[in-house]
């Protein structure tokens, strides 16, 4: 089985979010970048397939050279080789089309991507990729088993879960639950050393369109002051929730 794991290179969850150039660009100054958490859960599941069922695992990122340390980390966790499509990730369809090319060239059986990246929160690349290449697609995947050519997938739905069956090739959008937090792997020294020797294949982008354009950013208004309530006077809270906030 050939698995492709999509790796988005995102600001660490503790990053302060600021913008530059007249609020048109994300300010990367002092920001530490990591593997998108949803992707890391997916990558960890891919490692399980590699070790338990026999699979090769490639990781891919659409982005500039600055994303290579993030791909190297994925290699240190255990992926076999990395592909970087050398172009900025301009919008969802643009990235999906680059990935579609990688998918076709590589003849993959399974693509694992995070359900969304924590920077733009688009939540669209995995579904678009599947749509473009005609592969089956399951989103918010929290369980995946593969036998032969068939996958059994558990999908989180609002208020429960659903079990689905689909033939490969399959694309999933995944999140925590596909593996547990405690299953995540911290690269060890050996992994880091090996990762340096693993292939980092840089491919040039195909020329294609975008469908959306991020024009500018804005930070939320600072919020008003909190009202403190004496724990001995909970009637006041009930009153405020009813008359001031009007939420009960």
């Amino acid at each position, binding site marked *: 089985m050939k698995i492709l794991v999509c790796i988005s290179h995102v600001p660490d969850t503790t990053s302060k979010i600021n913008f530059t150039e007249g609020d048109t660009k994300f300010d990367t100054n002092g920001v530490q970048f990591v593997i998108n958490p949803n992707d890391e859960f997916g990558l960890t599941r891919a490692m399980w397939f590699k070790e338990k069922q026999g699979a090769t695992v490639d990781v891919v990122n659409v982005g500039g050279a600055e994303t290579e340390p993030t791909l190297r980390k994925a290699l240190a966790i255990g992926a076999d080789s990395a592909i970087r499509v050398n172009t900025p990730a301009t919008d969802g369809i643009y990235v999906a089309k680059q990935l579609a090319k990688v998918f076709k060239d590589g003849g993959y059986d399974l693509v694992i991507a995070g359900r969304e990246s924590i920077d733009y929160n688009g939540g669209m690349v995995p579904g678009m990729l599947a749509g473009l290449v005609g592969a089956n697609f399951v989103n918010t995947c929290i369980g995946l088993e593969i036998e032969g050519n068939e996958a059994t997938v558990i999908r989180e739905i609002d*208020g429960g879960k659903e079990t689905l069956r689909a033939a490969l090739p399959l694309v999933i959008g995944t999140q925590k639950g596909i593996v547990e937090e405690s299953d995540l792997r911290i690269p060890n020294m050996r992994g880091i050393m090996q990762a340096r020797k693993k292939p980092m294949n840089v491919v040039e982008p195909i020329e294609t369109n975008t469908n959306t354009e991020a024009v500018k950013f804005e930070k939320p208004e600072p919020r008003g002051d909190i009202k403190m309530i004496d724990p001995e006077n909970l009637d006041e809270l009930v009153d405020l929730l009813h008359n001031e906030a009007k939420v009960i």
Partner: protein
Amino acid sequence: MSVLVYTESEEGKFKKTALEVASYAKGVADMLGTGVTAVTFNAGDTSELGKYGVSKVLKVNSDKLKKFNAKAYTDALKQAVEKEGSKVVVLSQSANAKYLAPLLAVQLEAGYASNVVALPESTDPLQVKRTAFTNKAFNFTNITTDVKIIGVSKNAFGLKESSAELSEEEFSPNLSDGDFSVEVVSVDKAADKVTIADAEIVVSGGRGMKGPENWGMLEELAETLGAATACSKPVSDMGWRPHSEHVGQTGKPVAANLYIAIGISGAIQHLAGVNASKTKVVINNDPEAPFFKAADYGIVGDAFEVVPKLTEKLKKFKSDNA
């Protein structure tokens, strides 16, 4: 040319988010000088949609579509868009809508903006305001394609009544076997529980609750308020609560009217996921807990004392106001 809206129903009844996206679609239609067409799947009485500005309903009734199936629903919606010649499609950000939206975007060669929180800033170009960086910022995005898909965040726009004369039409899309290549084997859903996605009020517990055995008091509070229960990430990682209750940047987003955080410190990743909620109440015994900087009402106190008392007060309030 009408604005097309995908109005989701469950057991034949519309969800509140369906009425919200209908209200939003009406707002967009007014800006464009057109009407709103809703597509429903196995919904019963659709007259309610008329109250939120829908003027036409395409009713899909099909046994094959009893269970949500992303590919098949996408195909049906695509055919509806083509039939109506719609240029704007509006949908919610429910798990199902988020699942099908990118598929629909490919089918229609449409640009798709997710997590939209307000009516378009302009219609030419069509510019929308959406959240990014998990609620830490807003992002203004132009959708540059002929057909445009807007995913509207829950609770961002609200319900807006505006009555319209409603006409109904049966609509039978042509579905192929390929539409069902992903087969739904079983659905496992707690029927009587309020879900985090649909809840107006969410009661959330953190590590300060000390252990799963103490969740009874949170459940009682939640039940009193008709609320869903949620938790912080470590609580689900330790197995005190199911993963489905984990909220925050790497869990579910919460955009409730009222979010009550109990024994939760307010780490940045937690706040990112819940701060779209309108009113936040924090109960924590540490006055230095960061959550107090991000909430509307705060109580410094021991959850084990405050929560049962608060539940009693709320029960009394409910019975006085029943």
